[in-house]
């Protein structure tokens, strides 16, 4: 028997196209960003290792809780006082993990957690209203703006929320086993805004 080659597969891949697509010209658009590279990074932000990590990433880690930094398709999200989620383009995680491990020189840890979650992007003038239907975070722009992130719950699923721009657009990282549930929940919650532009 030939060796089975593992193939990365989105947890939403089995849904029919019609159920996965939402148009961009509506007040809420939804799209999956499958197979992003996700690295859990643990280190002391005040250490010299953090300076080397900055050089490896091309930008500094967020200095404040629940903030994100990023550049050129990569981002770093604050998860805890010594913990970050580094997001990179699909397929880029192995090389980035190696260069981060080199930068850490054992003064921290980097773990590839790409397979644990998928990302759903929700954007548009009513995106905030859709999220507010199932999330207890205060998402009003005077409190939560582009460049901020938070770990919380959305419709009882555990999520990491990252506001990526002022459309507003959000990236919702959801655990793999809750991805289909949350996708279908979001489609349903967005339905009432789909007619209005």
């Amino acid at each position: 028997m030939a060796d089975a080659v593992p193939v990365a597969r989105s947890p939403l891949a089995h849904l029919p196209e019609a159920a996965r697509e939402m148009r961009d010209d509506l007040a809420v658009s939804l799209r999956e960003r499958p197979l992003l590279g996700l690295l859990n990074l643990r280190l002391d932000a005040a250490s010299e290792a953090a300076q080397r990590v900055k050089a490896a990433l091309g930008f500094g880690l967020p200095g404040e809780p629940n903030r994100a930094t990023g550049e050129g398709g990569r981002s770093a999200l604050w998860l805890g006082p010594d913990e970050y989620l580094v997001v990179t383009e699909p397929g880029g995680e192995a090389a980035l993990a190696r260069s981060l491990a080199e930068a850490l020189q054992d003064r921290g840890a980097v773990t590839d957690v790409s397979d644990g979650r998928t990302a759903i992007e929700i954007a548009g003038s009513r995106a905030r209203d859709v999220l507010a239907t199932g999330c207890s975070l205060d998402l009003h722009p005077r409190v939560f703006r582009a460049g901020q992130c938070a770990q919380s719950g959305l419709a009882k699923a555990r999520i990491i929320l990252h506001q990526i721009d002022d459309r507003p657009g959000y990236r919702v990282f959801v655990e793999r086993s809750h991805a289909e549930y949350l996708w279908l929940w979001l489609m349903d919650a967005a339905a009432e805004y789909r007619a209005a532009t």
Partner: protein
Amino acid sequence: MLLIPCPWCGPREEGEFAPGGEGHIRRPEPQAASDQDWAEYLYYRTNPKGLHFERWVHAAGCRRWFNVARDTVTHEIRAVYKMSENRPEGL
């Protein structure tokens, strides 16, 4: 529903947190402790009507433990402070 100010994340809904019981409980020195000391360490809690010092964890958020000084009658949160800090004075 309480609004609990996580020392790292700021105010979040109670559902994001899990309580961890009374705070500032010291494990006695095993060799020196009497049975009574152990029993008190393991099972005896102050259970006050009023100001209570307790531990919470921001389970659905940053997953860090911290201390909360909460009034058990009014649910008013009088202080929030990190695990490494002592009980605040003058509450």
